[in-house]
């Protein structure tokens, strides 16, 4: 008889993964100078960086006259919004800080270090030598409100979920009321006085927020079995997608008044917003449709088999999955819209770019294009980068691609 001892497969040893450790020199060798052609590439790159960066920095710190930015800072930020009403913009910002702080505390309770790093930015602004004391106080307040929201969320994460949702949903109407005004309490500020970064952000946010539900409806309409709904959606999407945004804006600014009776006057900003919404809705629809198509048929069947009707299936099963899948695309669309809003400068609105050209027309700052355009480019970059960073965090938090 054979001896039937159980075989020992387990050697009992669990090995840790090998760790790599580098000295600075070792790292340099591995990544920059490992072969002769890497060495050449590294040297060439360093040289190119040197000849580009050196004169740029030299210019930025010795020749550039940043006075143009400093003097016109308020114009860049809020345009011709009345100076005595700017506190309303600040209130809107503080409310935003509070909401964002709360969201941060609930969704990323452990990401304290990144949160702290973000809070440093307003403090940095507050420390700028050339801003008014009013702004200085407000930047500090901004952080205070953010911390307040965060603290509440950390203190009672479960109980704060619902208030947060309410706050997020209510923020948009509150924002518009704050900036525009409500008759007896806040003075009405006509939209022709809105400008600068504030207008740029408003156009982008209004554009994306309102075109979002319209886009969803169009996407659903395009997949609908009702022929008229489907035809309308397809026509709308394909016609708008075939026209450049500038054209839509010109149509909204110049053609719309022709069709409306003369006593109805819609001001420029609202018309530009309408143009942007009309345009973005078509793209939004196609993005959402992409997400809808990725949902397997089995999801519909399971929902129907449980007795859910078409509406319930769409809103509880299909849309949540489809929208989660398209978050990266939607953020992409938002970033590109944020930059595309510069086109409204062409139809005469004073957004960030429009303000830049008015500033450059001031006699004392003629010829300061470089400073002005570099400044607004920096603003656009900071916002776009922040948004794409936020979207990556959001994807991780929602587990896109995992579940």
């Amino acid at each position, binding site marked *: 008889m054979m001896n039937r001892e159980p075989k020992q497969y387990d050697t009992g040893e669990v090995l840790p993964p090998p760790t790599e450790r580098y000295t600075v020199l070792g790292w340099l060798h591995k990544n920059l100078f490992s072969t002769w052609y890497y060495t050449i590439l590294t040297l060439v790159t360093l040289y190119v960086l040197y000849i580009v960066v050196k004169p740029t920095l030299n210019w930025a710190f010795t020749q550039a006259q940043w006075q143009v930015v400093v003097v016109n800072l308020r114009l860049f930020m809020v345009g011709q919004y009345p100076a005595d009403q700017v506190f309303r913009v600040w209130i809107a910002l503080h409310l935003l800080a509070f909401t964002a702080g709360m969201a941060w505390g609930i969704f990323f309770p452990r990401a304290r270090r990144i949160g702290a790093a973000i809070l440093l930015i307003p403090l940095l602004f507050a420390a700028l030598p050339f801003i008014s004391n009013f702004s200085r106080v407000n930047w500090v307040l901004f952080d205070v409100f953010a911390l307040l929201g965060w603290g509440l969320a950390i203190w009672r994460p479960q109980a704060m979920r619902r208030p947060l949702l309410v706050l997020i949903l209510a923020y948009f109407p509150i924002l518009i009321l704050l900036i525009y005004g409500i008759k007896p309490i806040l003075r009405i500020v006509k939209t022709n006085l809105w400008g600068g970064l504030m207008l740029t952000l408003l156009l982008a946010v209004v554009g994306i927020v309102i075109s979002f539900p319209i886009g969803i409806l169009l996407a659903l309409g395009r997949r609908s079995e009702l022929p008229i709904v489907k035809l309308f959606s397809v026509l709308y999407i394909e016609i708008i997608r075939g026209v450049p945004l500038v054209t839509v804006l010109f149509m909204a600014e110049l053609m719309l008044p022709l069709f409306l009776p003369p006593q109805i006057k819609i001001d420029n900003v609202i018309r530009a917003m309408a143009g942007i919404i009309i345009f973005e809705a078509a793209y939004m629809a196609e993005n959402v449709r992409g997400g809808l198509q990725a949902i397997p048929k089995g999801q519909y069947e*399971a929902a129907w*088999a*449980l007795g*859910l009707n078409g509406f319930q299936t769409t809103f*509880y099963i299909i849309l949540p999955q489809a929208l989660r899948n398209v978050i990266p695309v939607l953020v992409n669309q938002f970033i590109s819209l944020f930059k595309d809003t510069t086109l409204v400068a062409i139809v005469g609105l004073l957004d960030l770019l429009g303000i830049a050209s008015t500033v450059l027309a001031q006699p004392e700052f003629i010829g300061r294009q470089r400073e002005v355009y570099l400044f607004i480019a920096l603003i656009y970059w900071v916002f776009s980068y922040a948004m794409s960073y936020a979207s990556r965090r959001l994807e991780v938090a929602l587990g896109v691609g995992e579940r």
Partner: protein
Amino acid sequence: MSSVAKVKTTPEQILSLPEEERSAAIESGKSPIVLAYEVHKWYGNFHVLRGVSMEVHKGEVVVIFGPSGSGKSTFIRTINRLEEHQKGSIIVDGVELTHDIRNIEKIRMETGMVFQQFNLFPHLTVLQNITLAPIHVRKWPKEKAEEVAMQLLKRVGIPEQAHKYPGQLSGGQQQRVAIARALAMQPKIMLFDEPTSALDPEMIKEVLEVMEELAESGMTMIVVTHEMGFARAVADQMYFFESGQIVESGTPEEIFTNPKEDRTKLFLSQILH
């Protein structure tokens, strides 16, 4: 060669009863709870169901088997209108399947379905998967739905997974959640469309055990499967499908020990080894 309708009931017999008497007839076993009568269906020009007739009484467990492409999945999916039949009639729980969406929704509320690919909702937790339909279709309060859901999770043996997402579970656990999800609607009939075909071998048993327990509890079940052990243990009737027709039917005893048709014998010899 066309299959002869081997059903005793005609649609008229059920539909001629006033509605309030239908359920009594079903309860007493006088009328079948599911009646398919000369059901035909085409995919384009392909005649996938060629006059299928079947009656299932309350509490019966019916197993449908046959080669792939024989129309067995299509047939079970016509019972809750995931597929539309083009000729013949289907009456479920006294309600005839027509184009009337109200009838379809009524029938879907009373039939639970378990799919080969589980089809759990990946964005919802296990508990939310189970409570969704009771809350929104049956309009139960959330607390009641969750209580029932937890009982069902205990019944299928995985109460500790309630707050996980489907993607975090094994195939066998997912399929058990799918069964619990279907049961949460308290259906009168359960349809199983190859519930173990997508599972790894070591997980088939845990799902079959749940199904056997369900059969013993008196649930009316129509099961498309090739698990002949399961069929032998719990089926009341077995139907052998081929080319869109019922070739042979009988009790497991008859089918396994004394199949009449050569095609049934051939098929059984191929899957039983």
